[in-house]
């Protein structure tokens, strides 16, 4: 039986997702796995923008932060249900991407990177400075999620919820890659001029994928905040944006599985490297450098290229 690569990716993620709870000994490990799913969801969205369409975003944590703060602020200031707040966060994030994306997606390369960077920093500034509204740098509590009278709690529950969200995200992303929009994005990645000549509305295609990536990030942010039940402006800071970009790049640009692997590495490694104590950060940096030297296209595409040819069907 021949499996299309996108089905193989989905099946692989599904298998890992279903098997992990039986292999992980404690709820701490489940928590780390949950964090991997959440970060991976944001990275999968960002990969659509960066890997597929070739547009850089250095402010993606801003959208993540909007999603995270929506579930903290909606119930507190507007009396909204957390689930409704999360939805409002997705809409707000998508709208912001739509409004801001229109002018800044006209920029290319470094200019686009700087514009998105500015956007991310603006979101962080608001979350950090509006103490009365957001609780400021010390963060804010997030109310517990209650679904139809069921209080959602426990690491294992959140593992399933976030994992299902990721599966859904992966499925949508894989479908998008093979859709007319996906092909249009790949075309404009290679050459915007050629894409335009072929009849693709370049500006619109870029805008749509930017909005989609923003919604992915906002959903991930909402899930993280509901799971942690506490959020600080750090979810939206520049370092987190860089972290998301790094996940996509070391996992392999353009590969959805790569984005998940990248998220897993950047989330699990710091936990594994605590044995190095003071040298933890140096080792982490060194490993990222080594990945980039030896697997230049990113981990997943790099390893696939190393496999014997018959295995890649």
């Amino acid at each position, binding site marked *: 039986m021949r499996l299309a690569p996108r089905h193989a990716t989905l099946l692989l993620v599904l298998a890992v997702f279903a098997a992990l709870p039986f292999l992980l000994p404690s709820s*701490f490990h489940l928590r780390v796995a949950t964090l991997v799913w959440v970060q991976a969801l944001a990275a999968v969205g960002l990969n659509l923008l960066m890997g597929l369409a070739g547009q850089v975003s250095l402010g993606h944590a801003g959208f993540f932060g909007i999603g995270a703060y929506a579930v903290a602020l909606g119930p507190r200031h507007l009396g909204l249900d957390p689930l409704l707040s999360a939805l409002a966060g997705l809409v707000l994030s998508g709208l912001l991407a739509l409004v801001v994306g229109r002018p800044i997606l006209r920029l290319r390369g470094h200019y686009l990177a700087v514009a998105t960077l500015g956007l991310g920093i603006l979101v962080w500034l608001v979350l950090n*400075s509006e103490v009365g509204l957001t609780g400021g740098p*010390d*963060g804010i509590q997030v109310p517990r999620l209650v679904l139809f009278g069921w209080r959602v709690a426990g690491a294992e529950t959140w593992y399933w919820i976030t994992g299902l969200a990721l599966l859904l995200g992966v499925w949508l992303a894989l479908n998008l890659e093979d859709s007319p929009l996906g092909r249009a994005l790949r075309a404009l990645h290679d050459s915007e001029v050629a894409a335009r000549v072929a009849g693709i509305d370049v500006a619109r295609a870029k805008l749509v994928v930017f909005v989609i990536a923003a919604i992915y990030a906002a959903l991930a942010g909402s899930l993280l905040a509901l799971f*942690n039940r506490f959020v600080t402006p*750090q979810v939206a800071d520049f370092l987190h944006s860089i972290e998301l970009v790094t996940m996509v790049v070391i996992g392999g640009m353009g590969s959805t599985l790569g984005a998940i692997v990248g998220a897993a590495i950047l989330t699990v490694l710091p936990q594994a490297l605590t044995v190095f104590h003071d040298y933890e*950060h140096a080792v982490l940096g060194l490993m990222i450098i*080594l990945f980039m030297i030896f697997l230049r296209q990113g981990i997943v595409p790099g390893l696939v290229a190393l496999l014997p040819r018959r295995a890649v069907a």
Partner: protein
Amino acid sequence: MQRRQFFAGMAAAAMLAFAAPGHAQAPIRIGSVLSVTGPASFLGDPEARTLRLYIDRINQAGGVLGRRLELVLYDDGGDANRARTFATRLVEDDRVIAVVGGTTTGTSMAMIPVFEEAKIPFISLAGGIEIIEPVKPFTFKTPHTDKMACEKIFDDLRKRGLTRVGLISGTGGFGASMRNQCLRVAGEFGIQIVADERYGPGDTDMTPQLTRMRNVPGGVQAVINADFGQGPAIVTRNFAQLNMGVPLYQSHGVASRSFIELAGAAAEGVRLPAAALLVAEQLPDNDPQKRVVMAYKQLYESTQNQPVSTFGGHAYDGLMILVEAIKRANSTDGTRIRDAIRATRGFVGTGGVVNMSATDHMGLDLSAFRMIEIRNGTWKLID
């Protein structure tokens, strides 16, 4: 080939990290999550050094309850999400019996639910009053709150007969929190905040804010600056350049040598509330804290080759309160230790004399703060 070795090494590292250690006459495990790196590292680093130093010393002296102490310390880099992950790890994997740490208010608040749920005593080293207010059954803290800093300053102002005060604060966590507390308690001391100026974390010139303050109708009789790091040094320099001619008060956030170095001659005459540790040598011999702060200062400075800071002192207090509580409880059961911590009376630490109760999980009063003035480039104990 190289590549294969590299991955093998990585797998080994991962296994090492996740392998469960064996148990003999098991040591007592104390957990800690500190911001040793990142923006709060100037707090977290001395805290980590202090914990390592004193746990070694306690072990050399025979440990606690006949067992060795083992410190499990993680660095959260100042990130609340990472702090929470490490908190879960301390509870689930490392099975610690108590936790000292949480460098910032944000990381502490993120960790509290984890320890509360596991019924593990948690002694935070962060300043924010929300950590212990409302009281949570298993959460304690050792540093003074910013509310106390405000009260100490207002108390000093009242003694000098000054009532019209200008407040200038940074928008960072520390400044924002202290500003709120000062605005809240000013009335109780008959203090009127006639100007309330703010500045951002990266600002390099606060002359406009100070000028506005000088032009307030009726004028200001004193200025209070709530912040730590670079900001207060710049405010102090601008304050001197503008020749404001009224007293300037800083907070306990500047209680380190680097402030005097940064502000230079402009720091002369600046007053601030700070822990006794800062003026250890100047304390009168009959001061109850004299012996403790001198011993800590000498040991820290002789082993770490850096000047002592009050932040490391908070870690010392937290660890010692915990160790004494474990001894008194004669048990490693979380609830018993918690009860013993809560029963702490007359504990003399670097931050002050601690008297805990069921309603007070910090146990410090205003006498824990000393009013200090900067004279001839050094700290001078006033009160």
